[in-house]
């Protein structure tokens, strides 16, 4: 071993093996959040206008997985409410919450900016335009979702083409591309609202742009679930590479990272997540922005832990929001209203706790 120390003074060692406790601490938080997710999921299944005791919820779910050998202690109505009505929307809410939060955390890491949200490159506004046009043309809900997905992805494609057009690969140019496309899509959405029939189409467009799981069924969820889960796995596997990208282009490249390919793949995955989430339930603000902040507060900045924890907390947050949406009043409250009302004060609190220097 070669001693490279130049003077006798060394930096004192505080703890013998600090990393082990730090890793274990992060793992503990992740395990606890998984437990929290399961608890929130089951409790939310039991809560509603038609209350089902928690034990019955568990039994009904077990009976679906292991159909034999269990005494039926619940009514058919209970099973119908749990399996056909609440389960699809809660699975949908978990997927959407996890997808938006993971997408947001990825974008924030990639753009080295903690104030970035997943619709940075115009995916949400683009999806809204597609959905609004489909609503205007009177298409069924499945086609509306398909149109939203396509135009969402198209918007991001245009945003990412702008830096190529100017032959400038900087992150700033990409962000500006997103600003341009978002603004343009917002105007297109305005046009569709302007020409929409105010009695029903306009209301449908507005309702869609505020997000809801009210009409979500299992078929719709199963349609996007494979895409969301597989993309989540890819992003979670490349979570350490996002740490490298957040060092800056020069340092990352000097570490052998192919910036264009790695950033491109991460942006593609994060965009697919947001687009799938938006096409399932409409646009939902705040989740992708504040959940990664919350994650950073409890687990630190390392994307190895931040990405998984953001995914799980995002899912829990969305379950809570959806439970409020369907229980607070007689009719369904659009999700964006609740995420905004909960998110804005939560964000102020988080900023105060983190003492983020915004410069």
């Amino acid at each position: 071993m070669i001693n490279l120390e130049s003077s006798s003074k060394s930096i004192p060692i505080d703890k013998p093996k600090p990393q082990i406790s730090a890793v274990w601490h992060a793992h503990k938080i992740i395990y606890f959040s998984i437990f929290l997710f399961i608890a929130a999921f089951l409790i939310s299944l039991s809560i509603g206008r038609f209350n089902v005791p928690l034990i019955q919820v568990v039994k009904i779910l077990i009976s679906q997985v292991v159909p034999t050998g269990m005494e039926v202690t619940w009514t058919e109505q209970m099973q119908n409410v749990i399996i056909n009505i609440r389960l699809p929307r809660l699975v949908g809410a978990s997927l959407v919450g996890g997808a938006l939060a993971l997408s947001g955390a990825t974008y924030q890491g990639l753009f080295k900016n903690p104030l970035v949200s997943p619709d940075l490159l115009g995916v949400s506004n683009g999806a809204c335009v597609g959905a609004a046009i489909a609503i205007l043309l009177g298409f069924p809900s499945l086609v509306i979702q398909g149109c939203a997905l396509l135009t969402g992805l198209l918007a991001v494609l245009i945003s990412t083409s702008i830096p190529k057009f100017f032959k400038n690969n900087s992150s700033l140019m990409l962000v500006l591309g997103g600003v341009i496309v978002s603004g343009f899509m917002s105007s297109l959405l305005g046009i569709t609202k302007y020409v929409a029939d105010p009695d029903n189409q306009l209301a449908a467009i507005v309702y869609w742009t505020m997000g809801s799981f009210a009409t979500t069924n299992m078929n719709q969820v199963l349609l996007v679930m494979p895409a969301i889960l597989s993309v989540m796995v890819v992003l979670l596997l490349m979570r350490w590479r996002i740490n490298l990208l957040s060092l800056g282009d020069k340092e990352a490249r000097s570490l052998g990272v192919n910036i264009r390919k790695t950033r491109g793949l991460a942006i593609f995955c994060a965009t697919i997540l947001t687009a799938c989430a938006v096409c399932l339930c409409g646009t939902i603000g705040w989740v992708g922005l504040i959940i990664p902040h919350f994650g950073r507060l409890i687990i630190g900045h390392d994307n190895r832990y931040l990405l998984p924890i953001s995914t799980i907390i995002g899912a829990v947050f969305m379950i809570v929001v959806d439970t409020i949406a369907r229980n607070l009043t007689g009719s369904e409250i659009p999700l964006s209203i609740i995420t905004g009302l909960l998110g804005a004060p939560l964000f102020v609190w988080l900023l105060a706790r983190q003492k983020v220097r915004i410069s």
Partner: protein
Amino acid sequence: MCDDVILGVKNLSYSYDGVKKIFANIDFELRKGEVLVILGANGAGKSTLLDCISNMLTPTTGEILLKGKNIAKYAINDVAKLMGYVPQISTPTFSYTVRDYIVMGRAPHMGILNVPGPAEYDKVDEVMKDMWISGLADKIYANISGGERQQAQIARILVQETDIILLDEPTNHLDYGNQLKIIQIISKLARIRGLTVVLTSHIPDHAIMIDEKVGIMDNLGHMTVGPVKEVISEESLKELYHTDLHLVYIDELKRIACVAGKLNDENRK
């Protein structure tokens, strides 16, 4: 060309947009354990030269040879296995611990979907112990001092296990003690570990102390490269910095030192 040349720079030129010339016709060769200190005025193009050598920028003409093979023919990851680069001190937006920052040096040796495990962290611990900076391990990289950050950056490059290291003004913003500490570490890395080092500096004494090769880059984009004794003279330094300075032999140290002249306006050329 000799086989033992690790880094060869041949007839290198760079101009922005093909119009604004930054430097031209730069040639030098470095072998195992050699150090090249590049001196030059502000804006002379030292950082651009390092960007070209490190494959961040594509030179307008000329080539860079790593172990005899053109750098353009290497995959990005393979360049990173041979050559490490520390840009001027930068603070990352997100707070990583020093240990997590240093482990990033292992990236070229790992698969794209892998995360560092105990083997990678063992290497980090070993290097930190060698550099006597183990006490920094759990501190937040963004919160440590400039001198400590520079040592962490060098540790990151050592973990990268490359043959060549490039450092862009590693002593920038450091106090006098920390500057000497960094220069001492760099000199030891070359002498003891046999690393080939290229660094830029504004202090002629750094080149004199390391006593290897020096490159003086003038404002016209030309660089004179050679051993310290041949290249560094009062005339060459006066011409470079446009000020009065003296090279004084210090008997006790058995070397020369660069000393500024009087603070009179008449001394400025």
